[in-house]
């Protein structure tokens, strides 16, 4: 009996220590249909990037692929935080804005944080805010069908360099929310370091955060059940092409999580 036990223990240990699962080539990807329900919540993917970061174009492409999948349910905002050295080094390619650095630092970013990195809806996962771009699709899918309690619509009008943003907001139950208003510029042509060591000076930077109305964390409002109209103004920064600009308004709860957002072009 003891001898049989020894044999079984030996076989079990061999199986345990030599376990391996080989996935054949045609079984490596499994279709995962995207489930987008009818909630009107729009999500924000914040992409922290820098023109000296060679892998950032890959992250940008991943963000674009997600945008293709989710359409208007996803807003992508690329932020260039000054705290990370990948955004520094040449004055003519300074894409930083102070608000980007506030969010970056809030989410635990520092000079040593590997780039590219990003976040969905300023929401943490086990106390960790920043995630690598291969994780974004999964993290977004986890949040995609979460309900929202705030409903937004907006319009933006430009008069010379002044942009007036009119937001109509209502809540399922009256509650305090921060409304953050961002000016985002698309297709900004400039330099970008590439993985082969070269620099592409004709690179198009997408969805770049240029400025925000007031404080990085916006204005605090008590949003009532009945729709209320709120107005904020922004000044178009020097060098921004208004035809490439759009306005993003995001509603943040008391833990600074984005619970709904909208994006509109400037009239």
């Amino acid at each position, binding site marked *: 009996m003891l001898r049989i036990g020894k044999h079984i223990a030996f076989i079990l*240990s061999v199986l*345990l*220590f*030599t*376990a*391996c*699962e*080989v*996935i054949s*080539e045609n*079984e*490596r*990807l*499994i*279709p*995962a*249909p*995207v489930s987008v329900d009818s909630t009107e919540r729009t999500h924000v993917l914040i992409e922290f990037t820098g023109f*000296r*970061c*060679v*892998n950032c174009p890959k992250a940008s492409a*991943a963000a674009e*692929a*997600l945008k*293709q*999948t989710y359409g208007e349910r996803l807003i992508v905002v690329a932020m260039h935080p000054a*705290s990370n050295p*990948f955004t520094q*080094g040449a004055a003519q390619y300074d894409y930083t804005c102070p608000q980007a650095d506030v969010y970056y*630092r*809030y989410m*635990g*970013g*520092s*000079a*040593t944080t*590997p*780039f590219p990195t990003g976040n969905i809806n300023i929401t943490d996962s*086990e106390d*960790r805010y920043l995630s*690598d771009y*291969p*994780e974004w*699709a*999964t993290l977004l*899918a986890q949040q995609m069908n979460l309900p929202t309690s705030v409903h937004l619509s907006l319009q933006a009008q430009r008069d010379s360099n002044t942009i007036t943003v009119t937001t109509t907001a209502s809540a399922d139950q009256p509650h305090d929310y921060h409304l953050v208003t961002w000016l985002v510029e698309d297709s900004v042509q400039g330099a970008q*370091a590439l*993985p*082969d*060591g070269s620099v592409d000076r004709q690179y198009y930077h997408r969805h770049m955060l240029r400025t925000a109305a007031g404080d990085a964390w916006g204005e605090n409002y008590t949003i009532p059940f009945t729709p209320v109209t709120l107005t904020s103004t922004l000044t178009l920064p020097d060098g921004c092409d208004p035809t490439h600009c759009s306005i993003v308004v995001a509603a943040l709860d008391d833990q600074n999580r984005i619970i709904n957002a909208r994006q509109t072009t400037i009239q």
Partner: protein
Amino acid sequence: MKEYNLYLFILMVGVMSIINCQLSTARDTVYVSGSVQHDGLFPTRDISAVRTTPRAPWAKIDHLSNNYLDLSVHYLRSDSNKARFRGLQADTRIELNEWPLPGYEAEFAGHGLGRLSLTADFEWGQISVGDVYGQFGSGLLLNLYENRDLGIDNSLRGAKICVEPYKGLHLTALGGKQRRYWNCYHDHAWGWNYTQDAAMGADLELELHEWIPRLQQNDLELTLGGSYVSKYEQKDTVLVPLSDGMYMYNLPRWVGAGEVRANLQGHGWDALIEYAYKANDPTKENDYSYRSGQALLLSLAYSRKRFSILAQAKRSDNMSFRSSRSVRGLSGRLNLLPVFTPQHTYSLASLYPYATQYVGGEWAFLFEVCYTWPRKSKMGGKYGTTLKLSAAHVRGLQSEGRWAVNTTADGTYYTDIHADLHKKVNSHWSFNATLLYQTYNRTVIEGEGGMVRAGVAVFDHMIHINDNVILRNELQYLYSRDHAGQWLFVLLELDLWQHWTLSGSWEYNIGFAPDETKEHYYSAMLTYSHGAHRVSAGYIKSSDGFNCAGGVCRYQPQQEGVRMSYNFTW
């Protein structure tokens, strides 16, 4: 949750005490050994952008420190040579790193019991339970170790058994949940949750010279070895958006890897060949590639009196082997590929240290020759002269086939050619002179920056003034047209009365350096050593750079402030 482990430690000490009471005779031995280590910094410049825990609530803490207390309780049987049970050892390590020195990974911050283990020695081998360390072969598949400079502790919380059933046959098996900073306590109070970060392996080593008399007669030692390591992790949902829709990776729960090796030694020669293969291991680090990983290691060394020569080659591809597929950075690695590039200790010589390319792969070559001219010869002088020549070269792999060396200009990852001359001129004066040429592919190693070529000259000499006063002086110069410009480094170190050391250093960029600011970097330290105690304090202002060990690197940001450290071992 960490208090459970404190209770466990107290329980272990209690068990040891009971064993001691019950088993010890007057000749049995129980003793405690350990060490204390404190390294602290009172920063005098804003470090909020580089500190490991930049967010509240400890943003106002103005003292950063890494603190370790190691404690081991040993019980040795007096008749251990005859008894089947020979002894016990309990080890623990208390870590207080809540506000660590700058540059460590964010998850490094924390406190608790970093190690708990109990090891029993028997006539036939050894069993350990708790946090275990170990290495199979050269570490191509498994190397569990601790490195405090880098903040690495990749032990397994589980068990390890080492047996020698026959003379010359060594079997080691181990398994457990790998430590990634404080993950054990996050996942489960006792750290025994094996649904994540679990790994196990076995290694068999056969010393053929113990069995084949002809090998012994010819003074040859032939050792054959092999190991298998596998890791287990639950399937994750990792989505990948493609043009025709969203897909999900079919991730393997078990990933296995095997390794074989042969080592022949004798008559001053030492030859080693080792090969490792890793099955599909899609991870975040390799962009979820299902490609297998391989590593080949060849080493030939010869040494006799006053002369040694070493030639090594290594080819590795996709050999990052981690217990968790979602982890990048310094933690969670099961293996450590041997490094074939020199690890310089001089400040400017280590300005461009090489980091092993685990995922992208590399071909690495190392050739070293060392000769000591004897005393009273023309070159050796009165005390002898030692010259060491070393050449290391690392290149990438060709994208097609991947076995061939990438011979394009961008294929060079690193080159280090240096000559070291050590001479004791007379009873009072000795020196070490180094000339070094490096090429360093910043794009591959750091992510951006292109190729850097640098030359370094070092003159390090020591003047033995009398038995109570020894002066050491380092002069270093670096020239690089591509990146760092010209740097000067001067160090003066005065050893006084065998206990005190007063040292000061100054580092400055004297030439064109597009990325450098014209700042003086300096340090002044006073150290006192007495027995096993060593305490030092001083002021430093250091430039940023990479701190590397074994081809693994950690970015170290610029620091300025009062440094203090204390070490004690008993």
